């Protein structure tokens, strides 16, 4: 399978199954397109007949040179390569998995009233609740006990707003350090916060103890304040910006993200990303809102052209800033072509429901943070373990090859089939797709590939 596109003056050809990426001139670009239409086996037998439609555009010599290059790439397994992975998919579903990451919902409570919050202002379809230290400790013990030989374990303190249960966070970090020693494990802690309760003491502690800190901010003040008000209806931007700047500097501009959400109310979201960069942040993630059709701020199919244009604009501006020595990282344009995840990881996806679980304040287990509170997805508890083996098997069985909608998609080894929670919400099928998200993912990946090729 081939994917080819032109962006920012770069002609990109991706050979999907080998992972090879090439920049090519216009002749090769058109030759590859023609061969892809008729198939390599046909084209190699009589290339000039197959490529006759290009005779009016290019000389015979140009076409022959292009064909020589294409042939060399095919022979090296970097173009028109076949699918060597399809037989691996059933084995992934049957493989015994270990738990390697937990999302700890330490506070189902929040001090903001964000309009788009999938956690329903922290309550997750239930009542306000804080996780006790005892439940938290049991969660860490559950993780260690179910992690097998895996050494690196991840724990995300999440909410609601986790700083509303700060003493428990500190106690659990300390307990995690004890478990590291006794069980030869390494905990990587992350905390996601809206920043309201951040102070110097907490920031120093987070800097010393968290592998990653996620700071929630949406971009421009008017955009942020509209979606992320305080309970009394005022904006929260002024309450957090300086604290987030200080946190970023404390961490030497690494191992953190400012993370925001864009909605239909700011379709020009590239301005929000650039605003955050202008404020000095160098690690930025802005994601599309996930919302039902009834919400006025939900993204619609008709918004796609505008959103795709914004991603392209952002990619070009990022390259321009890089050239000026003023670059920054945008999470969804990150791509490590040569040292990225292995194919096994790419086939099996995010690991929700098997390798990654979310813990309700009560200790109940769910497939991920987005499923928390949905009773049909309660998988067990940190005390009794996973009792719904059927659910675990269902999630384990989700992979790139189990999703009909992914089979002909060139991006399948980069998104790994997408988000299971999104698939459930929009297709009511774990093997379904959230098409709008797929469109945006493909555009982000094209931008990321273009940027890699542009730099090369």
């Amino acid at each position, binding site marked *: 399978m081939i994917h080819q596109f032109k962006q920012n003056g770069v002609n990109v050809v991706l050979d999907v199954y080998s992972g*090879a990426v090439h920049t090519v001139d216009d002749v090769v670009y058109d030759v590859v397109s023609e061969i892809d239409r008729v198939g390599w086996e046909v084209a190699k037998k009589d290339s000039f007949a197959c490529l006759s439609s290009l005779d009016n555009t290019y000389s015979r010599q140009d076409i022959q040179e292009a064909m020589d290059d294409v042939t060399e790439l095919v022979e090296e397994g970097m173009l028109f390569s076949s699918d060597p*992975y399809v037989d691996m998919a059933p084995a992934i579903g049957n493989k015994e998995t270990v738990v390697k990451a937990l999302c700890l919902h330490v506070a189902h409570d929040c001090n903001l009233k964000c309009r788009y919050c999938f956690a329903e202002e922290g309550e997750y379809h239930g009542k306000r609740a804080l996780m006790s230290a005892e439940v938290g400790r049991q969660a860490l013990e559950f993780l260690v006990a179910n992690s097998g030989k895996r050494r690196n374990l991840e724990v995300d303190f999440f909410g609601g707003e986790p700083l509303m249960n700060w003493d428990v966070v500190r106690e659990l970090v300390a307990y995690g350090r004890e478990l590291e020693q006794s069980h030869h494990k390494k905990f990587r802690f992350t905390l996601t916060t809206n920043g309201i309760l951040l102070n110097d003491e907490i920031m120093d502690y987070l800097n010393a103890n968290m592998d990653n800190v996620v700071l929630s901010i949406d971009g421009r003040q008017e955009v942020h304040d509209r979606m992320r008000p305080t309970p009394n209806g005022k904006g929260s931007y002024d309450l957090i910006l300086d604290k987030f700047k200080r946190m970023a500097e404390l961490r030497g501009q690494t191992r953190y993200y400012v993370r925001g959400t864009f909605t239909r109310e700011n379709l020009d979201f590239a301005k929000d990303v650039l605003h955050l960069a202008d404020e000095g942040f160098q690690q930025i993630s802005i*994601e599309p809102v996930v919302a039902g059709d009834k919400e006025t701020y939900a993204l619609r199919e008709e918004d796609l052209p505008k959103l795709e244009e914004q991603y392209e604009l952002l990619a070009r501006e990022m390259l321009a800033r890089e050239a000026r020595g003023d670059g920054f990282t945008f999470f969804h344009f990150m791509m490590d072509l040569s040292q990225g995840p*292995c194919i096994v990881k790419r086939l099996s*996806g*995010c690991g*929700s429901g098997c390798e*990654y679980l979310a813990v309700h304040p009560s200790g109940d287990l769910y497939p991920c943070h987005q499923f928390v509170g949905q009773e049909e997805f309660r998988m067990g508890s940190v005390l009794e373990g996973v009792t719904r083996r059927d659910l675990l098997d269902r999630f384990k069985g989700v992979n790139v090859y189990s999703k009909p909608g992914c089979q002909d998609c060139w991006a399948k080894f980069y998104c*790994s089939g997408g988000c299971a929670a999104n698939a459930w919400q929009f297709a009511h099928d774990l093997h379904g797709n959230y098409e709008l998200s797929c469109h945006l993912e493909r555009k982000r990946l094209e931008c990321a590939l273009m940027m890699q090729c542009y730099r*090369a």
Partner: protein
Amino acid sequence: MKRVKTVNGSTLKQSLKRGGCGECQTSCQSACKTSCTVGNQTCESIKLTGGTVRK
């Protein structure tokens, strides 16, 4: 080659030989909580060994 610049070789196929240690980060634990991108992660075993995959 005169008309092609290969930016990345067949690294996906190469990863068949080393893959599946399971030490990599969980996708949603970094900065994405509502959409899944796996391709932007780094292989933990390459990070530890200093790189074993040929371009």
